[in-house]
Each structure stands twice: as structure tokens, then as C-alpha cells.
């Protein structure tokens, strides 16, 4: 069965500090990987995606993630966070099954950026 584990439920960090949000997945087949962000009382927005090619993926708002196939990880990083980055972040894995593409989400990591 496919699963996604976000290793930290909450990450507090000071403004302008670097941050890493960790994501591991389990799957025996090829997958596509995504990070989404959710601001309060809103839906999810795509930060970045890995479909194929270069394992280092750059997204919006200065975020980037690295796909590591051997460790089945897709960690999200930002070198310097802002107060406005405070939100919940979700890692997601998509694979193709008999009924088409199915996406599974992690439980989320709440990022708190402090002044």
C-alpha cells in the first residue's frame, strides 16, 4: 500500500532562518511527487512538483525540494523564511493504478515563523 509520512507535525522557526520539512513515501512503483501549501480557511495551492528529470525541483516563493529515490524522500527546503510562510504544508504522492491516477497526502506539517 502507498503511504506518505511527514515526519514533523509542527515546525517553529525564526524569521530569516532556513527550514526543512521532511517527507518520506512508500511505493513500489514510479510516483509523482508534490508539495502543497494551505493558508487558513483556504484550499491547497501547489508549491512544486516532481514528475521526472532533475531531482532538485524549484517552486514558488523560494521553496525547493529534492527527490531522493534511494531514500524515498522528497524534503522541502527554504533558505530564509518569512512571516508570510506561516501555513500548513502537505506532501503528496501520485501513482497510476487500475482506476487511473490516485493521490495520497501526508498528515501535514504546520510551519510557524516567528519574528
Amino acid at each position, binding site marked *: 500500500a502507498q503511504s506518505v509520512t511527514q515526519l514533523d507535525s509542527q515546525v517553529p522557526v525564526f524569521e530569516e532562518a532556513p527550514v526543512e520539512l521532511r517527507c518520506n513515501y512508500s511505493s513500489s512503483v514510479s510516483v509523482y511527487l*508534490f508539495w502543497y501549501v494551505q493558508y487558513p480557511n483556504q*484550499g*491547497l*495551492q501547489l508549491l512544486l512538483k516532481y514528475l521526472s528529470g532533475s531531482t532538485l525541483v524549484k517552486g514558488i516563493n523560494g521553496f525547493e525540494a529534492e527527490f531522493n529515490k534511494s531514500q524515498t524522500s522528497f524534503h522541502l527546503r527554504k533558505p530564509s523564511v518569512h512571516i508570510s510562510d506561516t501555513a500548513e504544508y*502537505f506532501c*503528496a504522492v*501520485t501513482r497510476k493504478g487500475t482506476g*487511473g491516477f490516485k493521490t495520497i*497526502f501526508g498528515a501535514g506539517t504546520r510551519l510557524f515563523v516567528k519574528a
Partner: protein
Amino acid sequence: DAGITQSPRHKVTETGTPVTLRCHQTENHRYMYWYRQDPGHGLRLIHYSYGVKDTDKGEVSDGYSVSRSKTEDFLLTLESATSSQTSVYFCAISESQQGRRTEAFFGQGTRLTVV
């Protein structure tokens, strides 16, 4: 913003009553999904559709049914609502390009309370 509309946005209903949530898209995307979001669980897939009249179960499908009679509409029905189905429900759409699934676009969510 992607053309996804969820209705209603908020609903309070009594235990044992049937409830139908509607997701409407104007993007002509093939895939449509229903997720529920609960604290500590992230987004969990309820059902999804990979075409008109083509649907499949997700992780937490018990107590829910879906229908898709046309491309633009995906309905989620709670046959007999229970308090455990109190949640925020999100609809998402996506398309597949050259066999690779693109990212999902999310609606604004429906907050359902079962009393």
C-alpha cells in the same frame, strides 16, 4: 484560479439525514477527487473519478457514495450522516498530459457539521 466551485460552502445537518455535496468544474479536466480534511490526518481520499461514470474508492470510502454523470460535476453523497463525518471536504481536479498526471487544483472546501 482554476474553475472549481463547491456547494454548499457550509452545512449543518442532523445525524441520519442524507447529504449531497457538489463539485463543479469549468476546466474540462478528466480526473476529479473528493477528500476530507481532519486535524492530524491531512487530506484523505474518499472517492475519485477518472471519467464520466468511472469512479473508484479511496482510503475512507465507507459511508460515502459518488456520481459523475457529466464531465463538469462530481457529487458526493453521505447516505446517512454520522457525527464522524463532520469534516472539511475538498474537491480537486487534475488532468493527465502525455501519460503524466499534472498537479491537482482544489476547491475552497465545504465545512460540514453533523449534529
